[in-house]
Structure formats: structure tokens, C-alpha cells
């Protein structure tokens, strides 16, 4: 990614989440989500919950839905694998469920340990009836998250936005 294209897409996600009325933000941190997490932390109307493992967030957001609040789960692609059985919860209960996934194991990946789950992420989500919207271009991110939120909170079907490694930029693994 060139500097000129260095985008404000994390801020676009934040605005889309605010526009959708999201109040609970569960995450296992990823570098790609760092700026968004910071924005959410600074927002007094958002409850930010740092998880020990990603499936906790699936259950938490289903509890939030029982209580009438909207939420989002922010994870890296490796964490999608941890969520598999817990995704039976929104599917079985026909609950809305929104996740935003930063992708690893694709375009420019340096660490081969990321490839297995990264390459399986979309198939795993679709096998668990989670609709996937993939973003490769910064200008698509905000509208995609806004429409994913609308799709799940109005339509009731789980949805994941996959932020591709081409969009985020591959992790550098160099000492600064």
C-alpha cells in the first residue's frame, strides 16, 4: 500500500459502527484493529471488552442482543477458528451477529503459521452460515461495514466483514 492511499478506513469503521448504534465492542486485539480499538476506548457510549479468546465475544454479543444492545466482535482471521462451535448460538437462535476480521495468511504474508487459518477463514464462516463481505479497497470499508450492520441487525443473519491483507498491508517483521 502506498502512503498516498494510507486511508482513514479505521475511522470509517468507527463511524459506521456508531451509525449502527453499536454499544458493545468485544475484541482480541490485532494490529489492524489497533486504531479502531483506540477510538472505541475513547467513546463513553461504548463498552469495550478485551477477551481471552474469540468465542467469548460471540457469546457476549448474543447476551447483549438478549438485553437489547448491539455489538461488534473485532478479531484476526486466526481467531475465527476459535469461534466455530460458538457460532451455533446466533445461527440456532436467529440472532444478529457482526464481526470484523483482519486477514492474515494472504497477500504478502511473511509468517507461514498464519496461512492455514487465513486461507480457511471464509470457508469456515460460510460453513457456519455467516455471510462474508470482503474488502480490498479502503474506500469500500466504511460502506461495507455500514451495510453489514444493516444486514445483520435488520435481517437477523450473522455477517462478517473481512479486511484483506492487501487492504491492511502485510506485517513487516522488521525492528524499528
Amino acid at each position: 500500500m502506498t502512503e498516498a492511499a494510507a486511508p482513514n478506513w479505521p475511522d470509517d469503521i468507527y463511524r459506521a459502527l456508531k451509525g449502527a448504534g453499536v454499544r458493545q465492542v468485544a475484541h482480541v486485539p490485532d494490529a489492524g484493529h489497533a486504531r479502531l480499538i483506540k477510538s472505541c476506548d475513547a467513546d463513553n457510549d461504548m463498552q469495550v471488552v478485551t477477551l481471552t479468546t474469540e468465542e467469548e465475544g460471540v457469546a457476549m454479543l448474543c447476551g447483549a442482543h438478549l438485553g437489547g444492545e448491539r455489538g461488534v466482535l473485532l478479531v484476526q482471521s486466526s481467531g475465527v477458528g476459535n469461534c466455530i462451535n460458538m457460532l451455533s448460538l446466533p445461527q440456532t437462535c436467529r440472532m444478529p451477529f457482526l464481526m470484523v476480521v483482519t486477514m492474515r495468511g494472504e497477500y504478502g504474508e511473511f509468517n507461514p503459521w498464519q496461512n492455514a487459518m487465513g486461507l480457511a477463514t471464509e470457508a469456515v464462516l460460510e460453513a457456519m452460515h455467516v455471510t462474508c463481505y470482503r474488502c480490498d479497497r479502503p474506500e469500500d470499508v466504511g460502506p461495507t461495514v455500514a451495510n453489514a450492520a444493516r444486514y445483520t441487525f435488520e435481517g437477523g443473519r450473522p455477517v462478517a466483514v473481512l479486511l484483506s491483507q492487501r487492504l491492511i498491508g502485510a506485517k513487516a517483521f522488521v525492528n524499528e
Partner: protein
Amino acid sequence: MTAPTIHRRPLVAKLLEGRDDRLLVITGLGTPTYDAAAAGDDPRTFFLWGAMGGATMMGLGLALAQPDKRVLVLAGDGEMLMAVGSLATVAMKRPANLAVVVLDNEHFGETGMQPTPTHAGVDLAGMAAAAGWARTMTARVDSDIPALVDAARNAPGPVFAVAKIMAEKLPFVLPPKDGAYLKDRFRQAVLGHV
């Protein structure tokens, strides 16, 4: 350690006795779901039939969404052992309105009564205390029950109470199992819309 003498069904009935619309209940899969059904069906009880390891975190999301309500999670020891990480997650948020009661028979009751780690001495209440829950306790005899019920229903949370119960195989009492129905009736009762 002496053998437990607490019976699970009267304990759960006591925990839910006199409930009003301020009490919201989530039951972990397996016998805790049947225990709560035996105590009486209620739209403000969300019965889990799966999603093992998710009960406590569902309770957290619900407690954050409904800070003026009391949220009570009834979990088995197997359910809780699968979710020990959530002891840390909940402790960080310190929800004052959340209580978790673990019905600890030290066995996987649904699958042939295999011993769980608590049978070997793993101390779930100790783990919650170390994580920083506001109130933790373990009830071992019937005379401990009133304090456990009071903590679960009233004490500032997050409360984590373990009840060492007998490893009884009791008749199934099965609540509705359609998740969409359980969700819709819960939201209708709590929010006034589905």
C-alpha cells in the same frame, strides 16, 4: 474432603424463588438447564442447549446491556471449566449486576459421569478470586445455602459462587429448545418487543 450433601434441584428452586422481573437467568447446557426448568419455566430464563463455555460471557453481555437488572448464570462445572478465560474477562469489566453460580457435581453428568478436574481438587472459586471477582464463595453443606442464595441474588458483583452438589442422576425436565423462540420470548418479556 467430605462427600457433598447438597441436592441440586432444591438449591436451584431456592435460587429462583420469588423471582421478579428484575431477575434475568441464563442456564448452561446440560443439567443446569433441566434444574431451572424443574423450578418452573419463565420467559426471563434463557435455556442453553449447546454453545458450551458461553454461558458466563452471555451473562456479561446481558449484564452490560441491562445494568438495572440482576443477571444470574447457572452453570455446570464442565461448562465453567471450558470457560476459565472468561473469569479474567469478566473480572476486567467488574459488572456489579452479574452473578454466576456453578453447580459443581465434579462430573460430566450428561456423558457418563466422568470426573471433571474439580474432582481432582481444581478450585473454581479460588480461580475467580484470583482473577479479581468482587465476591467468591464455595457452599459445601446445606447450612451454606442461605448465604449463597443471598450473594447470588443481592450482593454487589461480580459474584462467583460454587455449590458442591451431589452427583445425582435426576429425571430430565426439558424446557423449550427452539433457540429463536427462547430468544424472542426473552426479549419480549424484557424489552417489550422481539
